């Protein structure tokens, strides 16, 4: 069955929006890349890349050029077709998940009403989790088809970690969904007019954030690419453009989680203290909030050491999951009691 769509436009606008979303994602990822490297440098008392372009701003460009001009090779033990497809799955699911983040409500652009989001489905969070689930295949197939021990170990770790943390991540959102009584992300944002959900759903926010670190395979949960043990994790055998796609997908996933956090907990395009800027400001408000969440991601990466594997699992299943369940339960009881 097709999901009910809250609002949709002419087909040509949809195609245009798809292109714009891809373009925006492609622009944002290098910015996040350079920001992360610069900020990590500052967190560690050094400059970070500062040789290419002004303040090293062109470093990602140089990196991407280097990667794309590299020779395409694959190990003789790899499974050719899957080896080529796996990075594509990763990048595709990341971009698809990005499509759901609302950058603003329906707005009048040259007399045509356009929703500032890829698609507004009535199953918003489910859509994200569906693509998150498909993203496993990018990692799993990539690791498996490399035909290398390290890649396979990294992929297994990644898959186990993603599966365990997706449960708590989903449950953390349940509280918000119960409060907002809708699954559409735009409606969740408009339901936050009075108060952002980060205040009443602070436990859900923290759980979602921590699970988000795990979902994006970032420190302190970056066991998939624990360099010391696994060389590079599932992408050990990948090089050149394929490695670039994995890298791209990884950082786009950070942006997606940041976008979801912004939308669901930080009031999306709404400004605090009753400020109502004109409609064209909305996307920048969302981007600003996403930048703050991304900063948090980088900050945590600079601070926390990597967890041990059993700590990771016991934390996910014994701490986060019960907490998330409790959060959903308490929210449900409170909502029923209030209404």
């Amino acid at each position: 069955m097709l999901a009910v769509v809250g609002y949709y436009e002419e087909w040509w606008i949809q195609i245009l929006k798809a292109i714009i979303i891809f373009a925006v994602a492609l622009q944002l990822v290098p910015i996040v890349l350079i920001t992360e490297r610069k900020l990590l440098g500052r967190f560690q008392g050094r400059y970070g890349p500062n040789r290419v372009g002004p303040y090293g701003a062109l470093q990602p460009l140089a990196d991407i050029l280097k990667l794309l001009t590299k020779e395409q090779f694959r190990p003789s033990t790899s499974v050719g077709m899957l080896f080529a497809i796996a990075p594509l799955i990763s990048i595709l699911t990341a971009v698809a998940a990005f499509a759901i983040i609302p950058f603003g409500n329906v707005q009048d652009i040259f007399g045509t009403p356009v929703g500032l989001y890829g698609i507004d489905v009535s199953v918003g969070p489910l859509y994200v989790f569906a693509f998150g689930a498909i993203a496993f295949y990018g990692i799993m197939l990539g690791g498996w088809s490399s035909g290398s021990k390290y890649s396979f170990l990294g992929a297994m770790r990644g898959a186990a970690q993603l599966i365990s943390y997706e449960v708590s991540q989903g449950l953390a959102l349940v509280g918000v969904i119960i409060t907002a009584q809708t699954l559409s992300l735009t409606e969740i944002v408009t339901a936050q007019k009075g108060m952002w959900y980060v205040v009443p759903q602070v436990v859900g926010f923290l759980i979602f954030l921590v699970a988000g670190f795990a979902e994006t395979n970032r420190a302190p949960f970056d066991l998939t690419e624990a360099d010391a043990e696994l060389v590079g994790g599932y992408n050990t055998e990948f090089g050149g453009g394929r490695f670039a796609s994995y890298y791209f997908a990884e950082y786009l996933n950070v942006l997606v989680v940041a976008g979801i956090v912004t939308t669901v907990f930080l009031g999306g395009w709404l400004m605090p203290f009753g400020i109502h800027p004109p409609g064209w400001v909305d996307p920048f408000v969302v981007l600003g909030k996403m930048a703050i969440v991304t900063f948090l991601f980088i900050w945590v990466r600079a601070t926390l050491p990597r967890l041990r594997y059993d700590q990771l699992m016991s934390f996910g299943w014994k701490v986060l999951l019960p907490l998330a369940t409790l959060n959903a339960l308490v929210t449900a009881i409170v909502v029923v009691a209030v209404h």
Partner: protein
Amino acid sequence: MDDQHRTPSEGEPAAAQAGEGTTREGPLQARLNVKAWSPGEDVIEVTRSPAPGAARSTWRAFRETARGLKTTLGRIAEGPNTIQYPEEKVPVYPRFRGRHKLHRFESDDPTYPSLEKCVGCSLCAAACPADCIRVVAAENTPEHRVSAGERYAAVYEINLSRCIFCGYCELACPFDAITMGHDYELSDYDRSDLIFTKEMLLAEPLERTPLRNEGE
């Protein structure tokens, strides 16, 4: 039986050594000929239950995480400590032992060339533990006077790819003719380029290295 042909190893159970005749009965400990080991005080009670004070330890973990985040943020406020090396150099201490320098007597008269301090005695070469200095001395003549002494160094070479910068040459020199300078950027593309001749050592150093100020 196999048992007759092989020599029983040390730890092997007694029953196995006895072969066919012994019964396979009796308590295991008796058969294995080991004394019952009493764990005594070494036993540690293991309890499988939630650790006490879970709420407090959760709070502690939370607090410690926050403290860690504060620490890393403090590093941003502190600013980078990097020295942008090729553009910016670490100043050296006055007694830093860098590339050698050979010295001349100071002379204000430009028509009269100042004499070299080195008299070609080869004491530096004798003191050098790395054996990197080569001195060939020659006699000074009234027409051709190079140094203040009886003889002068016709050839004075230091192989800087062998030098360990110990400074013994400087100590050995009776005339303070050779001293250690402050230059430490000594890489080159060719090993033979690292053999410094007398002219190179006598020339004013390029002063590429900043000197550390008092108290810095």
